[in-house]
């Protein structure tokens, strides 16, 4: 109620966000009433948590790639296994640029613990050698002249 009144009076400090938790992309509104934030527009509790995090300390998962020693798969996709503060993204990227991994890394393997001091680990988000099952025509490089 206090929220509504403050909004009508124009005394509320409001901020708007687009929720990135799921593909619905709810339009969130945060209104500051007497020191606390009231969130509206969310269709689930995760939207409220997202808006509060955006106000206090926006965080993101970082997805990128690292170089490998493999000739056939020059890059391996990686991600942070936890959200890191948005402001730390450039520092984490600087770390990622320096990495070179071997081609035997599997999906989920930790590549860097506590990357750039963020507390999150950098993990492989794919296996360098992906499961293929019964392959009927794998290119045999040893037979290429």
């Amino acid at each position, binding site marked *: 109620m206090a929220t509504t009144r403050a909004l009508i009076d124009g005394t509320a400090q409001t901020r708007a966000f687009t929720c990135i938790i799921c593909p*619905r*992309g709810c339009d969130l509104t945060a209104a500051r009433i007497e020191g606390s934030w009231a969130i509206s527009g969310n269709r689930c509790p995760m939207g409220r948590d997202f808006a509060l995090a955006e106000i206090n300390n926006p965080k993101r998962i970082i997805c*990128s790639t690292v170089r490998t020693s493999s000739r056939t798969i*020059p890059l391996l996709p990686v991600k942070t296994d936890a959200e890191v503060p948005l402001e730390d993204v450039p520092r984490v*990227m600087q770390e990622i640029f320096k990495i070179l991994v071997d081609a035997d890394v599997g999906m989920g393997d930790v590549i860097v613990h506590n990357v750039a001091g963020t507390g999150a680990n950098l993990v492989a*988000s*794919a*296996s360098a050698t*992906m499961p293929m099952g019964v392959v*009927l025509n794998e290119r045999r490089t040893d037979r290429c002249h």
Partner: protein
Amino acid sequence: MSDPTRPVPNGRTGAGPIGAGQPTQIEPVEAPARRADAKWVPKTLGAYDVLVVGGGPAGLAAAIAAHDTGSKVGLIEREGRLGGILKQCVHDGFGTIEFKTHLTGPEYAERFMVQAAGRGIASHLNTFVLGATRAASAAASDSGTPAGNARDSAHSKDGANFVLTVENQNGIFNIKSKSLVLATGCRERTARQVFIHGTRPAGIYSAGTAQYLVNVQGYLPGRKCVILGSGDVGLIMARRLTLEGSRVVAVYEAKPEPTGLARNISQCLDDYGIPLHLSHTVTRVFGDERVEAVEIAQCDKAMKPIAGTERIVDCDCVIVAVGLIPENELAEALGAEISVATRGPQVDQTFQTSVPGLFACGNCVHVHDLVDYVTESGRVAGRSAAEYAAGRRSAGLRTPIITSNSLLYAVPQLFDVGAANEPFTVYFRSRNTHQDVVARLVQNGEVLAESRCAVVRPQQMQAMAVGTLSSVPNQNCSINLDLSARQPGSRKE
């Protein structure tokens, strides 16, 4: 080159420059035998109940579902690895519906690759489909079958209804199957297709190509990029290029509304301070060897550039993210009816096309914005194809589903009355943004199914899960799908 089949007249030099003037003795060339009955037939590489073309998310889901329904399944993939476009989609946000968690593209693909590998599904990698034909016996049996007859006798003697001619490093082969699932994905619309004029310097890439260069090959396509089009791939690339050290000057969108998902505008552009200019487009490209600048103009409501609003923006790279088009060479070759609205084959709720035994799923049917729905369509197509191959499903009587003007399109376009008791999903895109609407499937004024939507947007495909229909649809009457405002006091909440 002269036609080698035509005999060369003896003793004439013709226009030959060598030895002109001397009567050269040339033996008459025997025309090679070109009799239709002596046609070379490639060796058969395999015969399957269900053959899936494309090893991306749709194809993987189809192959797994067909295997689990008891079919012998083959999968054809032109690249050396499975996973399709997901291999290069290293960003996260995949699998929120399928796995209730956030995965990157490669992670999402690998989960299905593990499932396919565990089932021993045969994958023909590095194999390209050159052509597809439907066995004459299969085609003859549909014309011999009265339309009202649900009995299906489309299986030829060896059971193969489809023959695919494929090429791999060992040569050209045939692969046979009883039913065929197309999971060939989509292609990007190019700069030329949106009429960008000017020179043709290096540095103009489609967003998917740029994504392949950055995420798979490890090359940066440019240091100062302009992105045309606000499709999701373009937005994702704006962030990716920024992270990799490129400067993204701006994203320009000719339409008055962004075409990508709102969450991607927020997390890809707003997070990195990349401006989005709506109703603006690239009208010319400058540069000889390399892009040096582009001309930007403001657009009117019809997306036409407004004269006098042009300005020059310096850049060394133009990323074109102006939409995707379903890839349907095979569907067309096999004679499947193509929808004008989706540019993919028309399908029924079991994802069977207008050609009996030919199924299609994923982005070759219509362009999805979420991979989770691609997987779901693949699963249904794979299961249906397996049932068709086993003779448990027929190309039955189908009635069209007609969409009202409030929708851009809906899939399926056909309703198989024989499968009316199976739950299915209707996927649609609205023409405009609306809040609190109801989508209804109606036949003869009777509501067969309805679903409430809190928000519908053209950018966001809606999936309307239809459980049991309130009545069995009439096979002789079309079904209508429309969108209407929810009536106040409606009991459905």
